[in-house]
């Protein structure tokens, strides 16, 4: 199979360069080149990210100074902040859309969409994705889905406001809250499109990784980024269709009077006709995607961190096979732990026991990964580039956030912290901040590959250090708020005098959040400036071994001007020495994957 695939690719390379008349539209807009599509994903994701972060600042201000009037509220929210005081409905809308945008549009599409597109063909040695056309279609469906989500912010009754999980009946009944009207319909349409683009993209990634690897690139010579992106695509294909079914059934309940998720409802003085459905069924369907989703978010970050860490430590990643095994174990376990979001949902408590067991199991591969990263740093020659700093930061937040998962995954302990700020702190550290760090690491590291220019390192350092301090400043104290019993999604906590002494923590967290948000402007400035005025990149600025750095700096459709290089070794021959303690290639501490094994050189047991 792979032989025929190769033959096909070679054919393509032969006629390459002859009839390529690219117009502005085919090159920049409806491009089928994976590198351009990856940039489209990245920039769209970053714009959505800016919107999501801005929303978080608005509701953090409301939490720190409840009911206070701010001109900025009135300016941005208009009629939803009469006199500059945020309305309770719009507060819920903001947290809902913040969650949706950050989880799906930024950390799913913006992260794995960008880097799957960029790295899969380049690192496996392929001319492009298996289907460039489908790839283009998937981006444009994503774009459409973003547009619809943004349009929903401007409808009369406001956007969806039932939380990012949109549990029915709240999300199903327009009379339950204004956000469950038109805003919710648009949310569902947008998500349905999002799922379609995710499936098209994922299938493309899987086929490409399986069939289009260059000669010599066996699965066990793949960089860990590719393993992570490949497995991410697989779990996406397994779980996203289930969300689609949940969304479709919810649409039917909302618009066609079915009762999949609804039963026995009396609201605003009248009994509704719904009978026999169950909201718990929706929770099962939602979290069957929802939990794998957090691994869809974090696995690409883990893969990139592994790669960037090895490159900058000038050492092979420690335990390559264990890293792959743990990615596979996490992927498998991620599909059978969804019930830990539902311990107290009314689900049978025996199921709760089973899900506790599987959930705590997932800590094992996660621990292996963390220890392997730490050992990769040990006795290295660490080049502390911004990408490397974000990688180290990612390991730090992944550990801090992951550890509290031991509490939340335990059905007993979950009882009292379920849906409190403890959960919010946990998942922001372990998947939000960690995945964002992974994304930043990837951007700093592969910016030269994407734009042919370097990002400014000093701005990168400032960006990292302020962000690192502020993210802990926001989310570390937040655990205490949760353990004090403060529920999430409360517009203000003043209705409970027992929470009055938490106001100063709220102010502290909001201050850190505001500084962190403004720090991202440094990144935005650096990104845009470097795109046009950054220092021209060399072909292999980080002295890395993997294939993407053998392509020319100037992008060409087809990636390599001549034949696709053949691969002779794995991607982690950094600082490898012969028996005399000399580098394999004298004076150079890395051996590119394209270099054949030397006489007597041993290929390690990977």
């Amino acid at each position, binding site marked *: 199979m792979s032989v025929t695939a190769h033959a096909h690719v070679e054919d393509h390379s032969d006629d390459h360069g002859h009839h390529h008349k690219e117009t502005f539209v085919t090159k920049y807009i409806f491009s089928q080149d994976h590198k351009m599509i990856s940039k489209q994903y990245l920039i769209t994701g970053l714009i959505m990210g800016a919107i999501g972060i801005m929303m978080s600042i608005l509701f953090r201000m409301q939490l720190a100074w409840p009911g206070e009037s701010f001109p900025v509220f009135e300016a941005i929210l208009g009629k939803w902040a009469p006199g500059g005081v945020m309305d309770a409905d719009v507060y819920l809308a903001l947290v809902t859309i913040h969650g949706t945008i950050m989880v799906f549009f930024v950390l799913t599409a913006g992260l794995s969409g960008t880097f799957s597109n960029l790295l899969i063909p380049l690192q496996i040695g392929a001319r492009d994705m298996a289907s460039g056309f489908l790839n283009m279609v998937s981006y444009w469906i994503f774009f459409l889905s973003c547009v619809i989500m943004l349009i929903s912010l401007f409808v009369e009754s406001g956007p969806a406001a039932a939380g990012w999980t949109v549990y029915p009946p709240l999300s199903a009944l327009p009379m339950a809250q204004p956000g469950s009207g038109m805003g919710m319909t648009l949310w569902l349409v947008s998500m349905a499109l999002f799922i379609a683009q995710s499936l098209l993209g994922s299938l493309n990634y899987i086929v490409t990784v399986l069939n289009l690897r260059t000669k010599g690139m066996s699965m066990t010579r793949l960089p860990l980024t590719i393993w992570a992106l490949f497995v991410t695509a697989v779990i996406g294909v397994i779980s996203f269709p289930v969300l689609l079914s949940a969304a479709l059934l919810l649409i039917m309940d909302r618009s066609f009077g079915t009762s999949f998720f609804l039963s026995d409802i009396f609201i605003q003085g009248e009994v509704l006709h719904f009978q026999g459905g169950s909201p718990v069924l929706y929770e099962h369907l939602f979290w069957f995607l929802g939990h794998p989703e957090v691994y869809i978010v974090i696995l690409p970050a883990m893969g990139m961190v592994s790669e960037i860490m090895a490159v900058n430590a*000038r*050492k092979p990643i420690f335990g390559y096979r264990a890293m792959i095994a743990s990615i596979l174990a996490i992927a498998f376990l991620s599909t059978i732990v969804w019930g830990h979001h539902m311990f107290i949902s009314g689900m049978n408590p025996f199921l709760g026991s089973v899900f*506790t067991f599987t959930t705590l199991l997932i800590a094992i591969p996660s621990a292996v990964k963390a220890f392997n990263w730490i050992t990769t740093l040990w006795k290295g020659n660490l080049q*502390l580039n911004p990408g490397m700093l974000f990688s180290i930061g990612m390991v730090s937040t992944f550990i801090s956030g992951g550890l509290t998962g031991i509490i939340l995954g335990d059905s007993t*302990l979950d009882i009292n912290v379920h849906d409190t700020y403890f959960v919010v702190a946990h998942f922001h550290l372990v998947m939000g901040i960690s995945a964002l760090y992974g994304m930043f690491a990837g951007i700093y590291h592969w910016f030269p590959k994407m734009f042919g220019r370097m990002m400014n390192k000093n701005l990168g350092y400032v960006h990292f250090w302020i962000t690192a*301090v502020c993210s802990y400043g926001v989310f570390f104290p937040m655990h205490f708020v949760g353990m004090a019993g403060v529920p999430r999604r409360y*517009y203000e906590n003043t209705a409970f005098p027992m929470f*009055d002494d938490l106001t100063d923590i709220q102010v502290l967290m909001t201050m850190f959040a505001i500084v962190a948000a403004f720090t991202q402007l440094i990144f935005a400035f650096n990104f845009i400036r470097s795109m046009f005025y950054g220092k021209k990149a060399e072909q292999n600025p980080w002295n890395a071994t993997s294939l993407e750095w053998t392509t020319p700096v100037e992008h060409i459709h087809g990636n390599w001007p001549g034949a696709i290089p053949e691969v002779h070794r794995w991607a982690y021959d950094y600082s490898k020495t012969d028996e005399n303690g000399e580098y394999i290639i004298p004076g150079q501490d890395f051996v590119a994957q394209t270099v054949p094994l030397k006489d007597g050189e041993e290929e390690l047991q990977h």
Partner: protein
Amino acid sequence: MTPFLTIVVLVLVAIAIWQMTKIFELSQIKANNTEVASETDNKYNGYLMFAFLIFLYGITIFSFWKYSKVLLPEAASEHGGGYDSLMALSFVIIFIVQTLTQFLLHYFAFKYRGEKGKKALFYADNDRLEFIWTIIPVIVLAGLILWGLYAWTNIMDINEEDDPLTIELYAQQFNWTARYAGDDNVLGDANVRMIDIENANILGLDQADPNAADDIIVKELHLPVGRKVNFKMRSQDVLHSAYMPHFRAQMNCVPGMITQFSFTPTITTAEMRQNPDVVDKVKRINRIRAEQAANGVENKDPWEFDYVLLCNKICGKSHYNMQMKIIVETEEEYNKWIASQKTFGSSMASAQ
């Protein structure tokens, strides 16, 4: 206005930092800048890594020192003690692992920062090490899982032993209602289709069901100390969650089904008000409230400690204010209170 000013100041600080880096950058423009970390960058960032480790420990210590007092007081239910011990053990494990791993991570980042001529160690594998750090989490987690599951099975085993009191918690946007099962301790049948607001049948009780006649519907939850309570939860509109943090108890209320939770309260409200932690907390909060009242904020009367039932599942606009007071009292006080309440049967009769 103050917050707005603070934000302005923060923005200015951010701009200042940005400008400073720009100056820093311009001042060394000719230094052959490749935008790849130089020896100096490695050095400074290595030291910053170490400083960051200290910051991490610092913020941990600071938070514990400053914020431990905001945490919930001792558990006021029978299973709550075990819950708190398991939580404490988990935290001990978490902090040992956190302190060690963060130390190794940041210390290595500092210690092995890049230098010219340094040779990294080609170290790709070590089965024994990997086995060790697979097996240690396995053992520790096995212990936690076993303890957790044992506790969970006990908490979730809701039965009729020890003569429990049966109470229904009824949720709707945006308030709670409680229904006591009355003398027969059996709740009458109910369904939202039988709700008759005009005739004060707000919970939809089946008037034909003889078990319903002695049910007592109230807006305040009174519990006798030391007696097991079986809660049956119902919701009439959207999902809600009955969260009683002081009792380490929570269960969602789901329209269309009856969920349940059970616990035995062990500390009366009066006793809890004497608890030193609670006394401190009340004092602290009343100081804050007095300050706010002096600044003209409304509804800032002095607070007296009470157990509360909160809604902990997003349910709409006033989700943040959906609460009910819980009073744990002695058997005699409880009996006196319940005897003074009207039964469903008598209130129906008087309505007609």
